[in-house]
């Protein structure tokens, strides 16, 4: 399978650079998968698990939230706000964040903005937990 050059740079620094076969990630418009020789393309990233298939066919998973992906002249650049490889995700912390957010959302008096923030926190925690899991099935 032909490969292409992928760069992943998040706000915390460069996370990946190298040849890959494909990358699958969730955009604001649904899941997409980029293969080699894709046309020039640009879209915003949503929240979800990204799957990168390396040159040798191995697959790595990562939590990928926010930012953008662009394909320019065969060069693929992913610029997420958050990118965490599944093995780097702190599961305990994500679980704690999930519980905190759920606790907060139970409060009916929560004003709109705080609710949105808590929902975003909950969703981020869920994405992290979903990406950290090592089985094949992914539930988002």
């Amino acid at each position, binding site marked *: 399978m032909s490969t292409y050059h992928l*760069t992943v*740079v*998040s*706000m*915390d*620094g*460069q996370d990946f650079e190298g040849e890959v076969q494909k990358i699958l990630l969730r*955009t*604001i*418009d649904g899941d*997409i998968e980029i293969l080699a020789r894709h*046309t*020039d*393309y*640009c*879209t*915003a990233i949503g929240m979800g698990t990204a799957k990168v298939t390396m040159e040798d066919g191995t697959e790595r998973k990562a939590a990928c939230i*926010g*930012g*953008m992906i*662009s394909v*320019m002249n065969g060069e693929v*650049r992913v*610029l997420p*706000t958050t990118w965490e490889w599944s093995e780097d995700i702190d599961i305990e912390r994500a679980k704690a964040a999930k519980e905190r957010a759920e606790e907060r959302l139970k409060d009916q008096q929560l004003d709109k903005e705080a609710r949105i923030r808590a929902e975003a926190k909950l969703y981020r925690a869920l994405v992290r937990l979903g990406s950290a899991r090592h089985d094949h099935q992914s539930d988002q």
Partner: protein
Amino acid sequence: MAGSMKAVKLRIKSVQSTMQITKAMQLVAASKLRKAKERADASKPYLQTMLDTLTDIANSNTDYRSPYTKVSDNDKWLYVVIAGDRGLAGGYNSNLFKFMEAETEGRKDYTVLPIGKKSVEHFKHRNIPLYTEEYAEVAKINISDCFQIAKIVCDAYSSGEFGHIFLCYTNFVSMLSQVPTASSLLPLSDLRTEEKNSDGKARELILYEPDSETVFNAIVPEYLAGILYSSINVSYASELAARRTAMEAATDNAEEMIDTLSLYYNRARQASITQEITEIVAGAES
């Protein structure tokens, strides 16, 4: 002679206490710098890749439906200027302001969104309208503040309050060199580096999904926040590096001054002793 000796001694003491302060500041800046440099190094690739990508997009974009990509004829400028919180950092603040002055020369209608106390002071002093003073302390700004700044900037831009958004910050080239830099933020057409070619050559189209307006509305606030956050990190590291260098030079100068003064003091002391001996000998002989 005795009077001047006392004055020299006092002078040495005063220089010594100044040296203590500059030395302390140098050490503090050096230890903070280590952490700031790590953060700046981590932010740099993001800043660079983001700007490269958007420049590429701006160069080949032919879709002007989103307000963020349209060529703007509104001549109101908003400058986001990132400076330091404190002085005594060599030319760090003044270089940036000088650079900024050259950048805005001939332009009358502009507003500044200052980040950093020095930046607020500088533009207030010159009666330049400030957009908000909320982000005066550069050292305290975190990522969610950056998202907030990005949001207000985006809102101001899309409501037509400003036609161009510009960013001035100091790039951290190395420990010894920091260069004031400016970059255009909005509209994206300002990022264009190639002249629009009118030779009728077909440009490659970019595919936006679901459509360019939605994509840009989602990307732009995040792009601004990301750029702001990285450039604040880079500027903060530059400030500390500039301060460290300046304080190192000040300490060296103080040391040199103390050396010269002590030499002078010792000479004066010897001269006075010699004179006393001469006087005593002369007295005994007579």
